[in-house]
């Protein structure tokens, strides 16, 4: 296992750990979403890139390339669906938030 693979694996696991600490520490659903989704997507993609570097042209690396493309396409779509659904369902923002532009177009109904 070469040094480049170790570097990519370490970067990927570091980004995953940072995203999960953000998922624990942040005060709000929207903050947790923007902290964790981007960091964990980048970390997993770095791990898959390390697999492609290590194996070369192999069946495992072809599957890793497919998995990379699929995660790049679907993780932002899933995060956007969660934030849109929770905002429309009326879950409130953190009390320290200073701006909510989406509320002008789609007013939040109060949660029952």
């Amino acid at each position, binding site marked *: *296992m070469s040094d480049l*693979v170790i570097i990519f*694996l*370490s970067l*990927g*696991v570091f980004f*995953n*750990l940072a*995203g*999960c*600490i953000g*998922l*624990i520490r942040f005060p709000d*659903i929207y903050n*947790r*979403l923007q902290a*964790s*989704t981007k960091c*964990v*997507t980048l*970390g*997993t993609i770095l*791990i*898959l890139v*390390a*697999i492609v570097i*290590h*194996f070369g042209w192999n*069946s*495992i690396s072809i*599957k*890793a390339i*497919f*998995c990379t493309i*699929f*995660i790049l396409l*679907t*993780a932002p*779509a*899933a*995060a956007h*669906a*969660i934030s*849109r*659904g*929770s905002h*429309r*369902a009326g*879950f409130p923002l953190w009390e320290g938030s200073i701006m909510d532009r989406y509320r002008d177009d789609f007013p939040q109904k109060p949660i029952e």
Partner: protein
Amino acid sequence: MEIFLILLLICAFFCLYRVGAGPTPPDRTVAIDILGILMVGFCAILSLFTGKDLYMNVAISWALLAFIGTTALAKYLEGRTFDE
């Protein structure tokens, strides 16, 4: 080399804490989504260490099922129904 797997398991336990203690339903949905993507990375590292093809199949199918489940839960959060 097992330190990568141990760190990813610590991340997974953070996500499970958020699933259990999240104050609102979208917190639990976000944690389930993040847990799916983390397990894709976990299976990829297992495939890197063992050199077997099986774990990448597990990773691809886990990514598919995590996306479908997250989308269904988000739709349920938005309208509280599956009708539209």
